């Protein structure tokens, strides 16, 4: 199994505070990897580093065999690293369809490359089935700013998939969703194409266990443990860390 993403010795400091201190992470093609840990463990910082919005003081990030450490979020997205934000990030004045079209444009392959409008038409063809898959067909022509929170989350997932990702970074996707919406979210994430690797940051451990096949636990900016969900569930170290973190 090849390492799709390999982060080595990642360190991020904010003044005297070490948000991340020599963290290693390897994600394989199609893997469902979860990142958990007490508050302040460095999960979101690590996601920011992998997504390109935070540059680490030390360490390397390789994606698909290439060093992407100096690339920003846009360049990483074009290589296939897409992110879903803690608060759904959509374009509020654009319709749901237009949102998906905009997200699809950078990576879409038009039938005729130099034909005027070909790229947009190809993106438009992608949008319909994706909105249908997310159950958003009825609101396809509605500006995204008018959608409910759960619908925006579904729209953001459609946008991420429209970018033909190879790695999806999910930052607490269940935040602010109702129980029914969480159930729908789990179904959507379980139905993601197997070719798409996922790195999930989530506080709700029931979701972590339902969606991931590998779990990495962070604490105080360092890797505390890594293993299968069963191994993590029964690890005394992890239990202790959470007990301390919550206390």
């Amino acid at each position, binding site marked *: 199994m090849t390492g799709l993403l390999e982060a080595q010795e990642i360190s991020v400091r904010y003044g005297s505070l070490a948000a991340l201190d020599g963290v290693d992470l390897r994600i394989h093609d199609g893997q469902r990897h979860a990142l958990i840990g007490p508050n302040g463990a460095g999960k979101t910082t690590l*996601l920011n580093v992998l997504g390109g919005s935070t540059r680490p003081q030390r360490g390397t990030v390789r994606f698909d065999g290439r060093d992407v450490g100096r690339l920003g979020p846009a360049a990483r*997205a074009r290589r296939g690293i897409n992110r879903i934000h803690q608060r759904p990030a959509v374009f509020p004045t654009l319709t749901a369809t237009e949102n998906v079209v905009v997200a699809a444009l950078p990576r879409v392959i038009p039938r005729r490359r130099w034909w005027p*409008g070909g790229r947009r038409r190809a993106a438009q063809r992608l949008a319909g089935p994706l909105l249908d898959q997310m159950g958003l067909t009825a609101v396809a022509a509605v500006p995204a700013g008018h959608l409910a929170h759960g619908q925006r989350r579904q729209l953001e997932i459609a946008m991420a998939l429209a970018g033909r990702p190879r790695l999806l970074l999910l930052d607490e996707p269940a935040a602010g969703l109702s129980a029914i919406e969480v159930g729908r979210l789990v179904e959507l994430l379980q139905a993601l194409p197997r070719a798409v690797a996922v790195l999930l940051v989530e506080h709700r451990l029931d979701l972590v266990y339902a969606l991931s096949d590998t779990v990495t636990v962070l604490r105080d900016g360092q890797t505390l443990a890594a293993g299968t969900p069963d191994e993590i569930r029964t690890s005394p170290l992890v239990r202790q860390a959470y007990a301390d973190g919550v206390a």
Partner: protein
Amino acid sequence: MRGEVIRRVRGGIAALVLVGLVVAPWVVDDYTTSILARTLALALVGVSVALLTGVAGMPTLGQTAPYAAGAYACAVVGSRVSDVGVVQLVVAAAAGALLAALTVPLVVHARGVIVLMITLAIGELVVIVLGRWRSVTGGTDGLAGIPAVRPFWGLPALASDQARYLYALAVVATLVGAVLVLLRTRAGLVLRAGRDDEMRLRASGHRVALHLSGAHIAAGAVAGAAGSLLVVAQQYISPADFGFDTSALLLLGVVIGGTASVGGALVGAALVIAVRDWLFGVLPGHAPLVLGALFVATVYLLPTGVNRARGRLRPPNAPAHQSDQPAAPDQTNVAELHR
């Protein structure tokens, strides 16, 4: 259904305005016709301001710079090279686009009020250059005696105010149509998305700076083309045509018309220029005061008109998403861990 009705009403009003503009030269006197032709030129600059302010989210006070570049390029070509309108128009648009391209590095990486300051400085610098480069621009005296334009090769020169006005109207209608088509393309969609949330657009893999550069250059070309219409309308130009008051009036007109609307920008800019010229006769010396009051009233009474421009009026690098802020309180359920 309601949207359809609104669209039809708007279309009807636009058609009526267009008919009114076409018949105007036969209804009003020659002086008013020449004022209308000049107003059309400024309204077209207003469209370029709207393209940057409302669509691309870059509020600008510097569109007089490509406007001036286009006007002077047209005047020089018209006096020394060719009196053919199409040639002058292309040269003017190219000059405006070139000046905009040269200023791209200064503008596209800045945001909000900083863009306003930079573009204001560019506009003022251009006016100073125009005043001092006497061998080409005629200095503060400007360039006079520019020959009347002929639209195409083989056509007669436009000798009357009516003919020059109709030429300006045809060019404005064509260019506004082209801008409207452009806004319906992929480029327009991406620009609107960037205005909504630039960081989100970047996260989708778009080269935001490239899109903004394209918008800046396209807006420069439109303003440059408007410059050639000013030359056609006045047959005389001087640096006074491109001062700060013109920039401020254009931004005011676009804000009144609605920053994200090309039609609104046309109407708003035309309205403001008409009010200025009308007030010039009714309240000599007090026109700026009335326009200032109009600006304040617009900002307070029509907040949605300025909201879209305000979207980018935030400090550079301000966090756009919660994920870039400190993590939310830990909601981990310890019981889940022990299941």
